[in-house]
């Protein structure tokens, strides 16, 4: 086969990947049996620090996953990471995708959803691309309160081609409305927002969306799906394109992925959606069936004029999200959301009462918020990790002047006694530092 490919060794097949990005030699002894290898890996895994209590969020959250999600998503007929083209032998998977899309539409209030993309950041970047294509404009106005990872992905997507990205710096952990609106007025393609934003602040962007529309721009948003159960929906806020990270819907944190990017849009934009879309139809005998539809948008048909180069979805993760949403239901998701918010409010009260702790958000928050102390955020997190608590995300790496800020998050799994314990440890630590 190497001869047929015209290369002399396996190594040559990886020539396109820069050497510094390759994994290199594994630090394992050669010639071990499978059993020995397993034992070695288990020993390594046992070394990983697993803090007993975690308040780490920042876009990815430790929500409870009912056992049925694992049991159902691992059924042989479902267990595929790939999109099924052959509808005659993929009805179950296609129906699941169709129902997943329906659940995303219900959650966001939007008219059409695709079968998912890789993650929340990709979804937002693809959504922003939709706006650029639809408007034929190149100016993208993004809120600096977007998840910094998402901002990087959007910037990477728009780094080639005739685009201009204008980022508006946060104002008190929230959108700087006046500056943002002023930028939109200059012929923007898209207003890119997130709710709740990276700092946990909840906002009603109706006025900003209106400003975007009167400037001829589209409004693109990223929405935490659990929060969406409680907040004014993206559709009611007037957004044209709603995207988000679906990890919270029954998908494990797993050290960074695989995750799930969901995308939905108004009916007029359905054909501008990228990626796979499952549709319902009738077969020649009039029986209901499911297919991949509107494929003329995609690159295998439309080549370089396709709506996107994205050509796969997160089938298994989308399936898990569907199973999760079906299990918890509308009421259950609201309960998850309410509990997460209530725990966060309790923690905000507890931490806010500690001398030397300042809560940075001025506006309402959902399940996370930012607090400052006199200690650098990274040092505070290290100290708390020593006490078995992962206390959040240090913001210094993402925002200049935020070296003493920590973003902390809560879910329905955060126990009151754990929050109390953290508050005590934090108070003790800060007292000693003084």
């Amino acid at each position, binding site marked *: 086969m190497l001869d047929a490919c015209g290369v002399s060794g396996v190594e040559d097949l990886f020539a396109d990947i820069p050497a510094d990005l390759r994994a290199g030699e594994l630090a394992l002894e050669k010639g071990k049996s499978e059993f020995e290898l397993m034992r070695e890996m288990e020993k390594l895994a046992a070394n990983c620090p697993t803090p007993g209590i975690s308040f780490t969020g920042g876009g990815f959250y430790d929500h409870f996953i009912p056992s049925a999600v694992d049991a159902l998503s691992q059924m042989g007929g479902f267990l595929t990471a790939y999109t099924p083209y052959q509808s005659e032998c993929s009805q179950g998977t296609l129906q699941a995708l169709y129902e997943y899309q329906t659940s995303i539409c219900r959650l966001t209030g939007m008219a059409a959803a695709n079968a998912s993309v890789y993650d929340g950041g990709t979804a937002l970047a693809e959504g922003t691309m939709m706006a650029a294509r639809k408007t034929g404009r190149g100016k993208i106005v993004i809120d600096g309160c977007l998840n910094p990872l998402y901002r990087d992905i959007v910037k990477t997507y728009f780094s080639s081609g005739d685009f201009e990205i204008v980022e508006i710096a946060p104002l008190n952990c929230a959108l700087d409305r006046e500056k943002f609106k002023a930028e939109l007025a200059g012929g923007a393609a898209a207003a890119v927002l997130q709710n709740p934003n990276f700092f946990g602040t909840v906002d009603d962007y109706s006025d900003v969306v209106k400003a975007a529309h009167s400037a001829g721009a589209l409004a693109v948003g990223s929405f935490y799906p659990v929060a969406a159960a409680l907040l004014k929906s993206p559709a009611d806020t007037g957004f044209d394109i709603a995207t988000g990270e679906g990890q919270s819907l029954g998908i494990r944190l797993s050290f960074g992925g695989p995750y799930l990017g969901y995308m939905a849009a108004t009916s007029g934009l359905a*054909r501008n959606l990228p990626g796979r879309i499952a549709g319902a139809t009738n077969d020649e005998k009039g029986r209901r069936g499911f297919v991949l539809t509107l494929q*003329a*948008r995609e690159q295998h*048909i*439309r080549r370089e*004029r396709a709506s996107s180069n994205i050509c796969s979805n997160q089938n298994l993760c989308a399936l898990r999200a569907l199973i999760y949403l079906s299990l918890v239901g509308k009421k259950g998701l609201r309960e998850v959301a309410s509990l997460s918010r209530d725990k966060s409010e309790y923690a905000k009260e507890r931490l806010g009462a500690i001398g030397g702790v300042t809560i940075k958000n001025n506006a309402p928050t959902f399940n996370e918020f930012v607090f400052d102390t006199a200690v650098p955020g990274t040092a505070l997190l290290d100290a708390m990790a020593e006490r078995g608590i992962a206390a959040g995300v240090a913001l210094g790496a993402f925002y200049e002047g935020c070296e003493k800020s920590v973003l902390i998050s809560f879910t329905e799994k955060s126990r009151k006694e754990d929050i109390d314990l953290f508050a005590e440890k934090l108070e003790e630590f800060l007292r000693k530092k003084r």
Partner: protein
Amino acid sequence: MDIFYTKDHEWVKVEGRSGVMGISAYAVKQLGDITYVELPEAGKEITKGVVVCTVESVKAASDIYAPVAAKITEVNSALESAPEKMNASPEEEGWIAKLEISDPDASKGLMTAAQYDEFVKSLG
């Protein structure tokens, strides 16, 4: 009103400075059932040869090119809900856009109906 054709199978009917454009019966036959027409926007200026809009059929998504330089004055919004009009009546009811033609000699370099028939025959 005179009708002219391009090698990409668009037609344009010209009367003075006003025109109408669409795609030929031959093109429609090649495409098969048309399922969606992504219409251009009225008011848009187009130069000869640029992509004006896209027509999706059961077989392909095809770009439609401007036969002449013009300003689009009106689009056939009936195609939004009834793209099949293009199959049924490609050179009448299935028109795509009405144009205000920029160049009075715009038809130069385009084929007459008789020339186009010959051209299509040569395609086999």
